[in-house]
């Protein structure tokens, strides 16, 4: 089983990205869960969302404490929240940032596998708004191979309707341009 934790800010689409991941995994014929860190949502406030993907039926409804993957949609959160808390040493950290991998490692203290992409920049190019949730899914899929990009496209189309095409373009660009560096 793979467990995921998403860090973002209210309004940025972290919950949606967790949902799209789970919907895609189910379409891939796997078992999956996605759920928000339940609370009164406030735009701009730090929020978390969780997901699980498994080959077998998932029998666990507690929060994710030791994720295999942490995805950070807003880099400024790394200054406020310990985004790598509980992340398995052999896990993956996916970060939206214009900084270099070395800077991210220094600032987060993360020594394991790291994937970075300038999510906001890509979002501004394609979606014209700094909402980078679909962008980061592209980076996540490339770095982890956890779901198929074909079924993700179906899920994005269903969710976004007329803005699906720009979201897929953003997702694809992140998929092509994500930089993955192996850990120590």
């Amino acid at each position, binding site marked *: 089983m793979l467990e995921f934790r998403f860090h973002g800010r209210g309004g940025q689409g972290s919950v949606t990205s*967790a*949902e799209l991941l*789970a*919907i*895609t*995994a*189910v*379409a891939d014929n796997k*078992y*999956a*869960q*996605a*759920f*928000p860190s*339940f*609370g*009164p949502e406030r735009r701009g406030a730090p929020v978390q969302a969780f997901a699980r993907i498994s080959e077998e039926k*998932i*029998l*666990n*409804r*507690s*929060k994710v*404490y030791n994720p295999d993957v942490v995805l950070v949609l807003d880099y400024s959160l790394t200054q406020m929240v310990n985004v790598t808390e509980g992340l398995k040493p052999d896990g993956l950290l996916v970060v939206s940032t214009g900084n270099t991998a070395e800077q991210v490692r220094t600032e987060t203290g993360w020594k394991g596998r790291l994937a970075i992409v300038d999510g906001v920049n890509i979002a501004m190019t394609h979606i014209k708004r700094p909402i980078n949730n679909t962008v980061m899914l592209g980076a996540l899929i490339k770095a982890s191979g956890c779901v198929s990009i074909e079924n993700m496209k179906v899920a994005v189309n269903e969710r976004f309707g007329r803005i699906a095409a720009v979201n897929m373009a953003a997702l694809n660009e992140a998929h092509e341009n994500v930089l993955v560096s192996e850990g120590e």
Partner: protein
Amino acid sequence: MARRKGVESSIALADAVAMCKVDAISAYPITPQTHIVEHLSEWVNDGELDAEFIPVESEHSAMSAALGTSAVGARTFTATSSQGLALMHEILFIAPAMRLPVVMAVANRSLSGPISIWNDHSDIMAERDIGWIQIFAENGQECFDLTPACFKIAEDKRVILPTILNFDGFIVSHMIEPIEYWEQETFDKFLPEFEPQIRLDVKNPSTMGAVGVPEIYYEARMAQHMALVNSKPVIKEVFAEVSQITGREYKVVESYNMEKAEVALVMMGSLTETAMTAVNNLKAKGIEVGIVRPRLWRPFPTEEFLEVLGDISVIGCVDRAYTFGAASHPVASEVKSVLYTSDKRPQVREYVMGIGGRDVRIEEIEDMFMQLIEVKNTGKDFPIQYIGVRE
């Protein structure tokens, strides 16, 4: 072939309500139930669902309107949570008294105060004695499968009682998970048209909800009690039919690993899924423990519950609500009451957990099982354990 998709449980439940071709929905939004009626109202608005949607100014009115539409013979649905369910309180008793088969989904949530939107079973346990059939779903799939079952049970001529489908707020209601949908034709074959025995009709006037003078009130209450008690065979029949349609087992009391279990936990709702992992983890260490899950809470399935217990010698009852000041909380109270009138005398220990959204971890449940093993080995006694509460 059933369609399997990743979908939020609330949406799947709302889809099932629409596929039951409901005639009337009256509702007031309240977290965490909101997504259900939000989606139903959208479909009614878009002309995709041919039903009357009555937006009301409170849950008290939602339930009152539901009684009205049900009384004229409309298949009626509503949904609520927490304070909303509490606000319905006085009207809730009237639905079974007037024998109106309203179906209501309750996304279980704690009650104020302190104000909390999070999950536990406080809301429904405060409405334990309202005379409705009360069923607890474990996951999103059960929310979907049990929705048509609730309508079929409620409207059966041998039952005609309102029915509540409980499911855990957020933990189930807001969870995206894989759910297999039935085809529309399966719904249509399974659920016949609602044919009320009596209905409010201007051409054929009748009175519903008249005063019950002392000469008749007692008999009316007795008849209502018997109607609820006697609904169990029909509930079992409908559950068996759902099992056949879906290939998933639907019994009034479920069990897990009870054939081998040395000790067992009794619990309701989605907590059992997490507990199954605890059972599996202990099994890997050679320790056999089990779970008993009453899916049906009212009428309480006494015989089936005792049968599932078998000759186990230690059980722990898990409550997710308080009965303030009582000797035991609701589930433990029910179980002890059932046991006392039977010839079974397992040792009973009591637990409270998952209150007001407090997360429940697999390790906590493993610890509870191990504590029960210790009870079995040493007879150790202890008062109600409040798992995870800070002192």
